[in-house]
């Protein structure tokens, strides 16, 4: 068994730690790129959403490197992402690949027993003792939390740094170095050292940078290739960004959701506009938009793949929030046809808009 998984932001760091430490054979697909998207688009239905296509590309690239088992998350929620696993199993079979799929689903939907047996399928390949397996899992969780934390810090510091580009450079270097680590322990040590470095970069506390919240569909906000590296671009413009959704957030949410203690603040903030869970992360998107306004952000950018039902609903609600709170929100829809020129023009114009609003108090009257 050689395990692989679709890319989604920083997940590959945790996967490397987990499978590496467990001693299970695994393949990390090459970082999502044009090649993965083209390959995925070729084999997917045209109207299928962007994440599906990129994932198919990831699988095929991983198979080329010897993978035969895919781990993917599923859900019975009303969003197509929950059905990806079934569709992808069919598609890959039709393409003639003999792939095994292990679907990690919420215990509410498949039962705790089934979930444990699926985990067992993976962990039985490891020769470690039970205690050591759990230790490896904990290290992987530690890694994903650390990477997400470092990334969030770098994105925020980009607005305050004195030496332009420093936080981006440290972030990129950190990610590159982390992949050279031999095991989880050394990766955690390395991440901690980069965290300290990032904490200590020269920052100008008096700077008042533009602050933007990145909201929207979970895959397209987390996987940088799918949103044309919007966060990197914003760093170049000296904008501080914040994104709530991340793999570590997702994990925490998953653990807390059976007891209904997940993301209480987001739910509370969304209540006025969208009190129901309508699938995907639409309610989160609405809650985050309101939260971003309350926390003093200058604006928000919503990103979602073409044809994403939950986000289309939230897109229709956002203008009302924008009007009620006098809070600018830009919506960007991405798919394989997205032209970068128009995309950048809109981002730049949005930053100009926020900048000029800041300078001109009258505009808020």
């Amino acid at each position, binding site marked *: 068994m050689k395990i692989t998984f679709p890319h989604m932001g920083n997940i590959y760091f945790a996967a490397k730690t987990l499978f590496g430490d467990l001693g299970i054979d695994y393949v990390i697909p*090459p*970082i999502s*790129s*044009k*090649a993965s998207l083209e390959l995925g688009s070729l084999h997917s239905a045209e109207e299928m959403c962007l994440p599906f296509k990129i994932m198919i590309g990831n699988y095929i690239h991983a198979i080329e490197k010897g993978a035969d088992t895919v781990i993917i998350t599923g859900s019975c929620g009303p969003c197509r992402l929950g059905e990806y696993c079934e569709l992808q199993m069919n598609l890959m079979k039709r393409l003639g690949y003999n792939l095994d799929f292990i679907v990690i689903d919420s215990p509410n939907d498949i039962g705790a027993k089934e979930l444990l047996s699926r985990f067992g399928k993976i962990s039985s390949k490891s020769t470690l003792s039970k205690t050591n397996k759990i230790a490896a899992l904990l290290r992987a969780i530690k890694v994903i939390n650390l990477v997400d934390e470092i990334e969030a810090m770098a994105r925020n510091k980009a607005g305050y740094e004195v030496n332009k580009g420093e936080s981006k450079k440290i972030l*990129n270097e950190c990610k590159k170095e982390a992949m050279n680590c031999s095991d989880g322990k050394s990766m955690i040590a390395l991440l901690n050292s980069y965290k300290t470095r990032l904490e200590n970069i020269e920052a100008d506390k008096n700077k008042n940078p533009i602050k933007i919240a990145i909201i929207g569909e979970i895959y397209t906000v987390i996987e940088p290739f799918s949103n044309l*590296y919007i966060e*990197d671009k914003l760093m*170049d*413009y000296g904008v501080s960004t914040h994104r709530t959704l991340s793999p570590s957030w997702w994990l925490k949410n998953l653990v807390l959701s059976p007891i209904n203690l997940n993301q209480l603040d987001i739910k509370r903030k969304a209540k006025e506009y969208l009190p129901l869970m309508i699938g995907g992360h639409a309610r989160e998107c609405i809650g985050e938009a309101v939260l971003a306004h309350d926390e003093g952000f200058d604006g928000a950018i919503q990103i979602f793949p073409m044809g994403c039902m939950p986000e289309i609903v939230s897109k229709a609600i956002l*203008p009302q929030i924008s009007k009620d709170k006098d809070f*600018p929100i830009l919506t960007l*829809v991405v798919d394989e046809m997205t032209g970068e*020129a*128009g995309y*950048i*023009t*809109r981002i*730049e*114009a*949005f930053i*100009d*808009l926020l900048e*000029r*609003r800041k300078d*001109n108090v*009258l*505009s808020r*009257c």
Partner: protein
Amino acid sequence: MYYLGVDVGSVSTDLVLLNERKEVIEKLYLRTKGKPIAAIQEGFKALKGKYENVEIAAVGTTGSGRQIASTLIGADAVKNEITAHAVAALETDNDVRTIIEIGGQDSKIIVLKNGIVTDFAMNTVCAAGTGSFLDRQAERLEIPIEAFGDYALEAKGSVRIAGRCAVFAESDMIHKQQMGYNEGEIIKGLCEALVRNYLNNVAKGKEIQSKIFFQGGVAANLGMKSAFEDALGKSVFIPEHYNMMGAIGAALIAKAKAEKAGKTMFKGFDLAESIFSSKSFECQGCSNGCEVVKIQENEAVIGCFGDRCGKWGSELAV
């Protein structure tokens, strides 16, 4: 001292020179024809004998070719079209509330309040209703594009054209021609269809308040102006330099920026004689596989675009 603005768009490349009083003293409207470098050189050739390098106090670029133009010319400001258009319109009239801008392949709406941009939108999926589509229809009907609007104004009635998609609009026009409607009525119908398309797509959900400015190349078409006025029930103003607004905005922004910096980055008019070549390749450095474009001036590399990591030097001038 003069301030140069360059707007490299999909259809046209516009150059303007402003004087100290921010008046347009020189304007050039050139066809880009897919060769932005050649178009800029052509413009510079026309300016070279008339002005000295030292007379240029600031240069700004905008339009879809703003980065390449900036590399070539040495720009003080590189701004997106939306901001550039808004700045130019505000300079003309500070009371403007809505800007309808239709260019070669983009159509935009910009909403302003108290002299600052508060909202904007841009066409994303379809170019129906933009300049290149009108260009093509004029060509097909064998009417010069300059006269297109007059045909619409003279028409007594109009024919309803399906304007949601450029291809279907064309089929519908052919169908209506074959049924025997006259050209004027069809053209008027087309203008109305394009306005409908604009208001339903680009301007959807936006409040359109007076004063309304209509700018970009398509504003030359008086048929479009009157179709907008009919649909909105409000008067629409076309600024004097409607097809140069992007370039004017870029020049104004550059003026402010260069004054703050105390110097200009302008490389001089000599680039008109240089030999430029561009080469593109896929970087093999990592699995990102960026498509990098390298621009050379007389064999020397002056700039690279398209790489994400900065390995080939994508210095960002904002």
